[in-house]
């Protein structure tokens, strides 16, 4: 078993979003969170196999090139591709639905106070084959429960649910290769205490950046709780967070939002 050398030379082992060129009869094996993935190039086709580990078994294992031995995983899919030179690109992308995050402990923002909450959300993995522009497969790195964000059961949006420790100090933020950190800038312009019970992060509208240490960040979300109103004004910052040094764009938002304002469907962002 030997390690792959990505096409572009990256030394950081957490930097898994690269191009990989596989030799004949070699497969690429990778563990990202709960996802175990194997890609095997064959004559005129690529076999993508994957399975999910239990929640408590989540881990990271950098992509490795396996010669002659191909792990047997639960699901296998075959992709026909006539002309390709066994080039594979792995790319991270944010969740395809908003993620509703609940702080593990109750969080209250006093009147006229502001803070930045660092929230991490699970990443999806996109697999590109050869010169095909669209990803042939997208897989989540961690299983997330479904949840509903809306005032009633008739109107709202289906989201993913997640818990956060809600760090308010940047130094305490723990980065992971299968999570991206979103700075949520909270401001209470009201005169009463603002209970932050849950925050719906509009992940399909966020961009993904990497800093110089290969940590993944998204652009910041600014939430201003307007006086005497339950709904806050929400704005997505267009630039990478200021903490991400020498930030480079890794993936664009899945859906663009006009004028950096959230769509109507996300009006219940805070409750």
């Amino acid at each position, binding site marked *: 078993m030997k390690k792959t050398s990505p096409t572009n030379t990256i030394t950081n082992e957490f930097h898994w979003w690269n191009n990989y060129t596989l030799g004949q009869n070699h497969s690429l094996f990778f563990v990202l969170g709960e996802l175990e993935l194997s890609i095997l190039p064959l004559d005129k086709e690529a076999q993508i196999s994957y399975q999910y580990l239990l929640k408590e078994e989540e881990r990271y294992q950098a992509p490795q090139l396996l010669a002659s031995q191909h792990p047997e995983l639960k699901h296998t899919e075959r992709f026909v591709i006539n002309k390709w030179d066994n080039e594979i690109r792995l790319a991270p992308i944010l969740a395809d639905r908003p993620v509703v995050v609940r702080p593990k402990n109750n969080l209250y923002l006093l009147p006229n106070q502001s803070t930045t909450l660092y929230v991490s959300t699970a990443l999806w993995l996109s697999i590109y084959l050869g010169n095909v522009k669209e990803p042939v497969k997208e897989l989540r790195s961690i299983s997330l429960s479904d*949840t509903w964000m809306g005032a009633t059961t008739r109107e709202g949006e289906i989201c993913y649910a997640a818990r956060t420790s809600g760090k308010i100090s940047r130094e305490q933020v723990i980065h992971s290769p299968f999570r991206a950190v979103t700075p949520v800038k909270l401001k209470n312009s009201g005169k009463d205490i603002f209970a932050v019970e849950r925050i719906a992060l509009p992940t399909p509208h966020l961009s993904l950046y990497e800093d110089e240490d290969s940590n993944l960040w998204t652009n910041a979300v600014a939430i201003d709780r307007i006086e005497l109103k339950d709904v806050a004004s929400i704005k997505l910052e267009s630039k990478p967070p200021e903490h991400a040094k020498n930030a480079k764009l890794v993936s664009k938002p899945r859906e663009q939002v006009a004028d950096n304002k959230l769509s109507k469907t996300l009006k219940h962002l805070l409750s």
Partner: protein
Amino acid sequence: MEEASMASISLFLWLKAAILVVAGTVIARVVVKMLNGILTTHLTTHALQLSRRVIFYGILTIFIISALRELGFELTLLLGAAGILSVAIGFASQTSASNLISGLFLLGEKPFSVGDIIQVDAVKGEVLSIDFLSVKLRTFDNLFVRIPNETLIKTTFTNISRFPIRRLDLAIGVAYKENIARVRELLIRAADENPICMEEPAPVCIVDQFGASSVDIKFSVWVRQDQFRNLKDSLMEDIKELFDKEGVEIPFPHISVYAGSETGPFPIKMKTDTEQDDKDHKE
């Protein structure tokens, strides 16, 4: 000679009329096909089906009227005849008329659209089309069901896929010896660990009744419309597995036999194997 020329003129007129009808059908189809591409992005499936029909039959009617005029029919006379005919037809086609009017009400009210899942009495299926006389469904065992519009106006039906999420109610019986608080905790844990079970609205656990053999608990969880069956299947399996692991008993129905006396125990006489063998031998 004259008769022959008259016959040829008549044949020519009939041919002309036939060409008009055929041309009308072709033009109507072409127009519908052209508009289909434009309208697909703007209209719902149901509105698209309806517009296609209106456009097709509208164009065809114009060509049929032209064909009839070519054949020398007076339109006013035809309308007059249609007036008299309509009375006769009206009596003969009460059901169709009722269905037609019901269909118009259904179109106006829009209780469901094409692609929705509805249940009418015992029939449950996906709406294929909403027509003037009937609604066509495809059941989950792939049968084609035609329901007259009049039936839908008169009866109660359920649109299952109207809202994006729905509630799944599970009736779970546990033995009387079990601690209800612990059972609640286990049920909530099973829901938490199932990714398709929604976190919000939160699962609810209610003690429903003291049943004949068990304490009956109603466990309600929310799920995405399209995952309803999957959740029912996976959650029930999860609960069974968790109860087995934690030693929570799901009792079988059982009956207590009362001997008839308030204090006296039900008489039971124990016999040893040898006593029984002796008795069998004597017999």
